[in-house]
């Protein structure tokens, strides 16, 4: 897999022999190294020191750094957010963890009014280097209030930085970058992304909190994914390759500041754009990207851009109802073939290939080893 980076500093693990690890392990490793390097970094949240350790993403921290820096908490999201902000204003570097995005909804007042605005309102006197991690649930019947990908709510707000990494390298490197800069940074981590494995150096490194990345080169259509949908886009591109459609795949990485850079150059080349949100399409990342691209480079578009994302209704629990709810490699392939007006033969071949690859996959779990409960 070719990987072209924007704003390129640091090592290039994809080209090296960096060790393979899961995103969850990379997050824990980055946190541990940041805490070792900087005594002002601490972790706070519901479950950060419990036996499950937030899906393993805080594993080992309590043992190494103690309960003063790995703070297990009452269930109080609004207060926790304000407490993290107040500590950050005094130079601490809290990592506030929510096991679901929905938990952070109870803290929106603190995030929107205080985290995002204190630096501005005080004319730069205070900084709020808060890091907030939130997990997007999916599958296993988690239903309407445990599986929402609500990144637009956060990305709407000036003063916040909103990251949705998809690579294991970014899982660690972007987190470590967030812990050496001065702004509030929110990470939306797709639950299924935690299981993904990939190369990332064992040594500390940072990845920039800006810019998107081209993961696969292509000529005919640009597929832009966020977080887990990047993996669906890569699978779709691989299927499309087999029928002679060359798709370029962009990992958005950043919603605020919006990583338009490589999308702009990609669409200038392909003239066609499909965005794949992990959330609903209305007012989503894809909507913002398409609005920007159509405004800025309308002349380079050969077809109307298309947004893919969740169907416009709440997430039902029953797997009997979620068959077509999530965008998949198949739905991306369908959209690309329609946009490119490929012939019936090619379309049938692409459909068959997609069906073949999906065979045996269980749609409501991240991998066959997953046995619940959440």
């Amino acid at each position, binding site marked *: 897999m070719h990987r072209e980076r924007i704003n390129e500093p640091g090592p290039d693990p994809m080209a090296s022999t960096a060790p393979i690890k899961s995103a969850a392990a990379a997050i824990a490793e980055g946190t541990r190294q940041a805490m070792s390097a900087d005594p*002002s970094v*601490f972790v706070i949240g519901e479950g950060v020191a419990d036996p499950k350790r937030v899906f393993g993403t805080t594993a080992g921290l309590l043992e190494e750094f103690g309960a*003063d*820096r790995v*703070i297990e*908490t*009452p269930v*109080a*999201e*609004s*207060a*926790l*957010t*304000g*407490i*993290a*902000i*107040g*500590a*950050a*204003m*005094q*130079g*601490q570097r809290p990592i506030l963890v929510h096991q679901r995005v929905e938990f952070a909804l109870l803290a929106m*007042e*603190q995030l929107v*009014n*205080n985290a995002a605005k*204190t*630096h*501005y*309102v*005080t*004319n*730069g*006197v*205070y*900084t709020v280097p808060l890091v907030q991690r939130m997990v997007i649930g999916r599958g296993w019947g988690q239903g309407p209030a445990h599986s929402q990908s609500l990144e637009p709510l956060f990305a709407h707000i*000036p*003063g916040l*930085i909103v990251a949705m990494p998809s690579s294991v390298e970014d899982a660690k490197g972007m987190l470590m970058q967030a812990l050496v*800069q*001065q*702004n509030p940074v929110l990470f939306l981590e797709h639950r299924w992304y935690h299981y993904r494995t990939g190369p990332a150096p064992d040594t500390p490194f940072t990845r920039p909190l800006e810019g998107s990345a081209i993961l696969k080169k292509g000529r005919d259509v640009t597929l832009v994914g966020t977080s887990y949908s990047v993996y669906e886009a890569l699978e779709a591109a691989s299927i499309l390759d087999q029928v002679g459609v060359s798709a370029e795949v962009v990992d958005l990485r950043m919603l605020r500041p919006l990583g338009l850079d490589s999308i702009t150059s990609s669409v200038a080349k392909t003239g066609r754009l499909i965005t794949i949100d992990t959330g609903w399409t209305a007012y989503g990342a894809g909507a913002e990207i398409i609005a920007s691209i159509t405004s800025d480079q309308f002349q380079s578009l050969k077809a109307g851009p298309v947004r893919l994302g969740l169907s416009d209704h709440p997430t039902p629990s029953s797997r009997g109802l979620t068959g077509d709810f999530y965008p998949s490699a198949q739905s991306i392939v369908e959209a690309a073939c329609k946009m490119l007006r490929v012939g019936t033969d090619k379309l049938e071949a692409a459909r068959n290939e997609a069906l073949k690859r999906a065979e045996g996959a269980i749609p409501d779990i991240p991998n066959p080893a997953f046995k619940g409960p959440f």
Partner: protein
Amino acid sequence: MRDLPDSIPDLALYRQMLRIRMVEEAIADRYSDQLMRCPVHLSIGQEAIAVGVCAALDRQDKTFSTHRCHAHYLAKGGDLGAMLAEIHGKATGCCAGRGGSMHLFDKAAGHALSLPIVGSVIPIAAGDALANKLNGSKAVSVVFVGDASLEEGVFHETANFAKVHNLRLLFICENNLFSVYTPLDERQPSDDLTRLATAHQIPCARHDGNNPGLVMNATRNMIEKMDDLPGPAFLQFDAYRIREHCGPAFDDDLGYRTADAITAGMKTEPLATGLAKLTEQGQLTEDMVHHMRAEIGEEIDGAFEAALSAPFPPSETVRDHVYAS
């Protein structure tokens, strides 16, 4: 255990209250000039609490406040010129014109932050206390809240967290009996707000909020207690908001409080009672009051003149500090 600052004599406390009263009366008098183009929530009637509490604090102790923050800011030593400039939207304001009257802060003086959403500042103060704990500091984080703040969930979340994690967080609850126009008895089952601290097993006490010496001593006692029993504490002080919720005027014509309540409130308000007491004790004469008022008036006039003549912030700075670099 840390040393408390020296007690401040009643006369000096009175002068501080008078200064705050005169600043806010000047704001009220000049508000109709339409040059202070932001909401103002005057503390008139509640000065004794701000002055008494801050008299018990060191500079290292930070205060946090609400939309009704003028008195807290001034009592903690916040810069008067920066306050009036902020209310005028000028570049020399404490927020350089980005906050207005509800966001007053003076980091050097230790008035860390004021936030206008009810309850919003409470966990921020607790975060300051958490940072103090992590840094091994014995400073106290003081959060001024109103009676309605205790109706917000975030108060209870923070009180519980502060108790469980032994944060040196001191709640100062100013009960002025109203949330805008809605009286306390329509919002809570009792005017004893300490019951909510008790529910969180937080040491607490309730006092009259019209006597700054009493407020100071109650605060000193509570801080001493916090040294013995690590963790938060809570003080309720009862007061009377003399003017409208937001704005420069009296609003008794609206009929939301009874004539008896108004009479009682004006009888107990801290400037009137303070003057009567100090006069009776022979500490204050008419001449002294006259001199005090002239001196303070001169300071206030100077600060207004400076605010009025200061420039607005340059429009090209409007995008500065959205993000820190």
